[in-house]
């Protein structure tokens, strides 16, 4: 169900929308933080947050309030809130818009989050290349400090708060939360072993909550209207997937972009109503629903959920394009919601070239710490590259799933799954195309692009 909202995006497009004045005028700026800090107890904040059913916007979809509740005061160590604004997942471009166009929502969210988890400092870890984002956050922090919102006594309350922007280490893996913590501490950006989880020992060995930037930016609006009411804005509130969020679409659509909608939007609405339809009015071929790590969907796939108890049963027999974009609904159709930014592949896109593109990325970004990911990601690329170049054999094609199967679950961090899942996805859904390359019936487009246009489309 398409229901556009503007809780988070009201300032988008407004002149100087990123400044404190606009934020206060348009978004009840900092009123919510003021109320929470002066009237609520810490534990009530966490309990309230749970009701919002904000599923983590970083990709894994973990409920935000539940994550906050894992924080236990440590006898000697401080607690930290760390905001993940590394936004490195290919096909993901939503956090950046918030930092550039509504940075104060992030600062206010950090204030409420810190208060709820017992932290006094929030670190925002921003991807290195996002210079405008950093500048806007810095300016917002300066404005909030000048007003005394951030500082020793925010709103006169004896609860010192500070927000610090940290420039990222310039690697995709630094978006993985424990790698991010290493990078924040000045170490090599390599994921840590879990346990201990960040809530037990995170930044500088202290209890830490890591939230995605969009997750925390949703907090002020949720608390402003009441978290339960916020959750109920969602069409799948009953699946504990609440509120509103940013939906992005990119790839072969006429109008790529990011929109704020109530949770419940479908892929079809995202692609056709918001994205303006497929580029060149071509038929839709496939969709990578939420960032490169989420398994690809074919445009012609149907939901198979004959079991009446399945949460997906209401959509049984329907196109996957009509399932609401939700954490559990998309898990149910064999993929993931991920970052909720969909990549659209139009008819004519070569799935072998598409998988090759992704495998290049993963081979390049693996931190190399653990064996299956370090070596497996490189091997997947080698074979895919050979197949794409017309040098691959059937034997090698048949090795691809075996390699991915043995990366899956055997690694230190979820990068391993993030590599194996899309590989298996492309293989499962487009095996015939891979075979056609091996048999020499298809060749890579001469300019090396993913899309094989009508005029340079070789073979079938």
């Amino acid at each position, binding site marked *: 169900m398409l229901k556009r909202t503007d809780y988070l995006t009201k300032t988008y497009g407004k002149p100087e929308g990123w400044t404190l004045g606009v934020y206060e005028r348009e978004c009840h700026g900092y009123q919510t933080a003021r109320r929470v800090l002066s009237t609520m107890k810490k534990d009530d904040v966490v309990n309230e947050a749970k009701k919002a059913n904000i599923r983590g916007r970083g990709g894994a979809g973990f409920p935000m309030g539940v994550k906050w509740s894992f924080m236990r005061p440590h006898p000697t160590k401080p607690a930290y809130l760390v905001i993940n604004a590394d936004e490195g997942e290919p096909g993901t471009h939503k956090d950046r818009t918030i930092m550039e166009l509504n940075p104060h929502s992030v600062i206010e969210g950090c204030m409420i989050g810190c208060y709820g988890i017992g932290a006094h400092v929030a670190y925002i870890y921003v991807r290195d290349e996002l210079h405008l984002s950093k500048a806007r956050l810095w300016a917002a922090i300066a404005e909030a400090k000048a007003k005394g919102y951030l500082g020793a006594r925010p709103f006169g309350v004896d609860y010192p708060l500070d927000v610090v922007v940290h420039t990222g280490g310039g690697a995709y893996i630094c978006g993985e939360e424990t790698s991010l913590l290493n990078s924040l501490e000045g170490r090599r950006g390599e994921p840590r*072993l879990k346990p201990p989880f960040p809530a037990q020992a995170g930044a500088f060995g202290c209890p830490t909550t890591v939230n995605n930037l969009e997750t925390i930016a949703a907090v002020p609006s949720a608390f402003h209207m009441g978290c339960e009411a916020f959750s109920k804005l969602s069409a799948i509130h009953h699946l504990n997937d609440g509120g509103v969020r940013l939906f992005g679409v990119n790839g072969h659509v006429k109008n790529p972009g990011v929109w704020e909608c109530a949770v419940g939007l479908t892929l079809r609405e995202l692609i056709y109503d918001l994205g303006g339809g497929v580029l060149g009015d071509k038929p839709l071929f496939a969709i990578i629903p939420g960032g490169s790590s989420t398994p690809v969907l074919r445009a012609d796939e149907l939901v198979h959920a004959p079991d009446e108890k399945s949460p997906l049963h209401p959509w049984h027999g329907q196109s996957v394009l009509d399932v609401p974009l939700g954490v559990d609904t998309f898990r149910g159709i*064999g993929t993931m919601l991920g970052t909720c930014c969909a990549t659209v592949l139009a008819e004519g896109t070569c799935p072998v070239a598409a998988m090759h593109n992704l495998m290049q990325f993963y081979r390049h970004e693996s931190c190399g710490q653990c064996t299956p990911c370090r070596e497996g990601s490189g091997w997947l690329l080698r074979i895919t590259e050979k197949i794409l170049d017309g040098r691959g054999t059937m034997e090698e094609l048949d090795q691809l799933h075996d390699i991915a199967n043995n990366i899956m679950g*055997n690694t230190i961090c979820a990068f391993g799954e993030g590599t194996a899942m899309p590989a298996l996805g492309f293989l499962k859904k487009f095996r015939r195309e891979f075979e056609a390359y091996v048999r020499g019936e298809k060749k890579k487009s001469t300019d090396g692009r993913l899309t094989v246009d009508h005029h340079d489309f070789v073979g079938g």
Partner: protein
Amino acid sequence: MPTFKLDGREIPFEPGESIIKAAWRQGIEIPHYCWHPGLSAPANCRMCLVEIKPAPNQRPVMLDIVELDRATGEYKPVQKPKLMPACQMPAVEGQEVFSDSSQHVKEARSHVQEFLLLNHPVDCPICDQAGECKLQDYWLEHQGTQKRMRDEPIHKPKGVVFGPTIVYDGERCVMCTRCIRFMEEVAKDPVLEMRERGNLNEIFVAEGRKLDGNYTFMVEHVCPVGALTTQDFRFKARVWFLRSAKSVCQGCATGCNAYLDYDPRYNKAHRYRPRDNEAVNKFWMCDPGMLSYKRAHEGRITEARVGQKSRATKEALAEVKKLLGDVAPEHVAFVLGAQASLEDNWSLLALASKMGSSRLYWTGAPAGASDDILISADKSSNQKGVLALAPNAKPYSVLLDDVRGGVVTHVVALGSATPAAGADDASTLGMLRALVAIAAHDDGALTAIAHVVLPACSWAEAPGTYVNKDGLRQLSDKALEPIGASKPGWEQVAAVAKQLGHDLGIKRVKEIRAAWLGTEAAAHASPAEQ
């Protein structure tokens, strides 16, 4: 002690201990590269993955993978359980763990093994590690298939000189980070790090530094593969020709347990390797200690000497008789050697008592540098042992005083080195009417001045007992055959005794040990003795 089950077998564990460590204590090896009992566990190699049966109230974590139906070319969705690294997971009371008995574990292991060899040069024929390489062992045990990846492997820096002792080969490296962790956690000098990313990763030495200090050999020792080699051992020997003797390092009073690796064909020692002993050196040795195997050959006394000229042992013994034959015993001093074994020292004490002399002194190596890791300032291997055998023995400085005062005119000494190698050392010893030294090495004033020198076996050629600074009595086995005319020190002492008309009543080491073990109650057993 709580227990868990590994492949159906009950394994006791200390609370908090990992599955792999508990199994290791029972002598069961769960295959591993990155785990080392003396280092932290990064769980990066993934070779030790095991299947853990979920507790009754827990749902198993299942992963979606696929199977290929080769007939139809269709992939079929299947599931596999999530495996966990045995080096990271703490053992849990009553838990069931499947290692060799799980098909999923076998599959994971063979693939990890295949991944590790994917870009490996497989240059075993020219690699020093061959024969003691985990990659070879585990290929045989857990993979056994040919390389499926037939393309040119990734190339990385080779022959990188890390410092005066260590050379690195990036292509052979499995990125287990043991070397990094050793330098950080044990040597307390975090000079190694990883750089690059993915399958281009390599180990490097911090900018502006070399891999140096007193613990560089250990990085080669912890390296499970041939990526790190020592300048000292590189290209010198193939390990399958070597034999190992359980030895005790003679470098200082710590008495690190070691294997002395030697080539029996040439009666030549090639290297030391630490031998695990939780109570002494844990898993480690220092660089000077590691290099001290060379003393099996260097600086040795291999012939008897009379007046500093080479002579047959028989002639030298005849000279001893001439020098000591009818001297009043109160003028004869016996100098025990803190660098010699208890056996040798016991026999010298026995001679003193047969001759009716109670003038006992002791000598040893000059003191040196120490640290708070392994190295002791006392550079003698057996000072504690000597003082336990002869608590009244006087220090070497008193001997010099007594020589100057004319009280001592004749000396029989074990060893060559003296604690304070000063100039007046030699001139004082020069006042002696007779100095007989029984020693393996020519590294001090005693053998330089001696009227008669008798060649003794080094620690490598005779079994011997040494008491370390903590009072732990440790046995060092024989590795090499005696070099030149040397004989075990106690045999030379017995020969001297015979020349002087005394019978010490010992023909074998065993008899010496029986003699002191009978009288000494507080004997410490060490692993070497068991």
